[in-house]
């Protein structure tokens, strides 16, 4: 099999402006949603209590919510998780109250619902209505704040580290354009999370950072080719070199991303609710990663004025001997 039968270099650079405008629009949209809707942070960041309970029969969520409210919980969120029998309950932090006891109090409330007055739901005191506690997570306010700070620091470290490495291995122009292209991926992933109000949790943060490393990787492969082409082939203009580099790596780009995406899709299908948003963040990251690291980073390098002289200036002889 050979999927990619390309006779001539595809003139990507001719459409560079179009690609970048598309990018810019998506980016601005993402920023817009981030600023208007904001991220739906998980309990880990905001602090509060999160509980997962499982019933033998699908419970009435409205009733649970009412019971919790009447027991004095402010603004509890009750929703299904995975299946209709699994219920996720979120209770925000309350000042003063002994927050680490919230879990027990919520369970007490849920028990009351089981023994409640609604005859439709409760035929008898059957075990069907007693919830089984699967998971409790309580996060105090100081932890959440730290996590947000650490997340920002981690992002900063990744950006600086990658830029330094690329500047050292290649050239500052490559470093700058790779990081611009890939940061814009990160913003777009966040934009999706803001737009759909998907829950932004710690694993999602991990996915976002992993994607950042992964898509830079993509730019590196193209840049490697650009450098090689500059060294090997004379008489090509910069856009031609870039076109050639992208074309000759496009099959690898698509096959690699396809393979990674197979793994991620498998996580989406089999990973259940716990890995759902993690896999979703990766999917968006991989799709936009291909686009941005190839079609956004390369034009940026071109506009920043990359040229043959930057690679083959002083050590022409030696370099060519190696190749």
């Amino acid at each position, binding site marked *: *099999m050979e999927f990619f039968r390309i006779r001539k270099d595809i003139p990507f650079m001719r459409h560079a402006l179009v690609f970048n405008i598309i990018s810019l629009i998506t980016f601005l949209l993402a920023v817009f949603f981030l600023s208007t809707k904001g991220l739906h942070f998980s309990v880990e960041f905001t602090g509060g209590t999160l509980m997962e309970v499982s019933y033998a029969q699908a419970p009435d969520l409205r009733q649970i919510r009412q019971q919790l409210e009447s027991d004095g919980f402010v603004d509890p969120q009750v929703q299904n998780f995975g299946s209709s029998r699994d219920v996720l309950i979120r209770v925000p932090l309350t000042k003063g109250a002994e927050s680490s006891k919230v879990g027990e109090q919520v369970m007490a409330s849920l028990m009351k619902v089981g023994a409640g007055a609604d005859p439709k739901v409760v035929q008898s005191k059957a075990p069907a209505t007693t919830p089984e506690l699967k998971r409790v997570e309580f996060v105090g306010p100081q932890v959440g704040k730290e996590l947000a700070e*650490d997340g920002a620091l*981690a992002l900063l470290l990744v950006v600086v580290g990658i830029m330094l490495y690329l500047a050292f291995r290649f050239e500052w122009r490559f470093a700058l354009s790779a990081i611009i292209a890939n940061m814009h991926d990160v913003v777009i992933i966040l934009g999706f999370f803001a737009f759909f109000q998907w829950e932004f949790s*710690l*694993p999602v943060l991990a996915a976002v950072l992993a994607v950042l490393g992964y898509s830079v*990787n993509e730019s590196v*492969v193209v840049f490697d080719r650009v450098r090689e082409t500059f060294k090997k082939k004379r008489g090509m203009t910069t856009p031609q070199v870039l076109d050639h580099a992208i074309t000759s790596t496009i099959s*690898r780009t698509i096959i690699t991303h396809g393979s990674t995406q197979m793994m991620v899709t498998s996580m989406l299908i089999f990973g259940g609710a716990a890995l759902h948003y993690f896999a979703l963040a990766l999917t968006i990251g991989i799709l936009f990663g291909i686009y941005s690291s190839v079609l956004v980073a390369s034009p940026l390098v071109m506009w920043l004025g990359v040229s043959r002289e930057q690679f083959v200036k002083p050590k022409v002889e030696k370099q060519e001997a190696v190749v």
Partner: protein
Amino acid sequence: MNRYPLWKNATVLIALVLGLLYTLPNFFGEAPAVQVASVKSTHKVDAKLLAQVEAALKTASIAPQGMVLDLNSVRVRLADTDTQLKARDAIERALNPVAADATYSVALNLVSDSPNWLNSINALPMYLGLDLRGGVHFLLQVDMKGALTKRLDSIGADLRSLMRDKSIRHGGISREGQTVAIRFREAETRDKARGVLADSQPDLELVDAQDGADLKLVATLKPVAQKRIQEFAVKQNITTLHNRINELGVAEPVIQQQGIDRIVVQLPGVQDTAKAKDILGRTATLEVRMVDDEASANPSVMDQAARGQPPPGTEYYVERGGRGLLVKKQVVLTGERLTDAQPGFDNQTQEPAVHLSLDSAGARIFKDVTRESVGKRMAILLIEKGKGEVVTAPVIRTEIGGGRVQISGRMSTVEAHDVALLLRAGSLAAPMEIIEERTVGPSLGAENIAKGFNSTMWGFIAIAVFMMSYYLLFGLVSVFALSANLLFLVALLSLLQATLTLPGIAAIALTLGMAIDANVLINERVREELRGGNSPQAAITAGYERAWATILDSNITTLIAGIALLIFGSGPVRGFAVVHCLGILTSIFSSVVVSRALINWIYGRRRKLEAVSIGQVWKPGV
């Protein structure tokens, strides 16, 4: 010719064998077991205990599958969970005849079911995180300010006795915020006091001050001393938590310091979170203070005190019987001085009692206090989050020396046991607060393992099928390299005993999905070389060599992201980061070195290689 030198082939082979060896324990699964550990430092875990356990099982006619004695526990491996429960009960009865005064903790546990020779080379299954095996995780914050105030309180008490010993007259010693103030009438006595304090209390910084007509000496803790006290407080709290958790009978609890002022507690397998939290959450500190008997006997004063206006220098508490009493604010002793507390019976009256042991300094103070206050009452208070509770307020019958104290009267056996437990476990150096809690049920843990495993397996299969049909034999080699990568990764995780969490499994899957990139790069490059008209052997050499620089660059950028996560991530993210970073390292080795070794082995020797099986190589214009 593409041949690897012998050492390279040997390295690959040895790596594979080691990888297989250390991955092996994960396949054997785990067997139910009972773990016996000592609760008291006086009872060591040794061969004698092993014999005792063996005898206990024999009498209950339970045949153990195996018994292991390690540094601090005896583990008995059993056939199934039913016998496990029976065995636990049998051992419990045999070792702890008095249930109230347990010497050993007997807990249910799981041990690796792999053969002994594997255990002996330290090949253990991966260490599963709480989200995979079920259990409770707590993050506790130590109140450092509380630790300092407590220390200042006891310094205040020390200063009082010091002043008395040196017969320096002072107008009162009191703690004011984070300082201790001593009042004097004359400047001379103050100078004298300063001299004495400077000699005996090197931790204190002394400043003169004037408060109206009074002269004051204000003492604050030096920063170095503060730091030492805080460090000590965390250590002491960890020790106390260890003791408390031992009482719970948990197998393999994790109690670690995190950061400057935090403690992580993980209790695998614990389902009764309410009890665990109850015991941990007793962030109680112990104080012994004198009861103001005169005022307590005065009904009108007591009336006022009950309404929130106790006489100065005292505090109003309600005893467990419901009667109110006034306790002096001055602290005689704190829980730090207490070395042990055991329930028992009074020798003469046979009433339930609690026996306390004090350390030497505590014993001296106690002797002084009791000599001066025979016939008076002293109160033992548990202070929880600033709120005190009188555990007991016994009458001092006689001077008590030697540091052996007995509290008796108006107590049931159960109460005596409770009080002893509280006193013994209750000596936290500083108050603590639970700031994070995570509980995972055992069924969810098993589900998470299944989900993680299935995602990885199906993803792997999909990639394998694609690679093999697209690159044929080279694809097969790539898949072999990817399997080797998985093998190395699992072996490393088992060897390091790094905690594997659900995000960790996700990281395994993702790492595999990303690691295939290196092989795709190589295979594409080899195809390209073939397309360019190179001979197969030259194409292999050039393909691997040219792909190498790219692979290195791209993996390093990914590694940078992984390391950032490792540094700043906590909890689930750290689990992800550890696996991710390890996976990048193993993937470089397996995708480049292992796959090359295999390709060399297949094609390398053939002098006249006409074609390689790498799928169709399409040439433009042909």
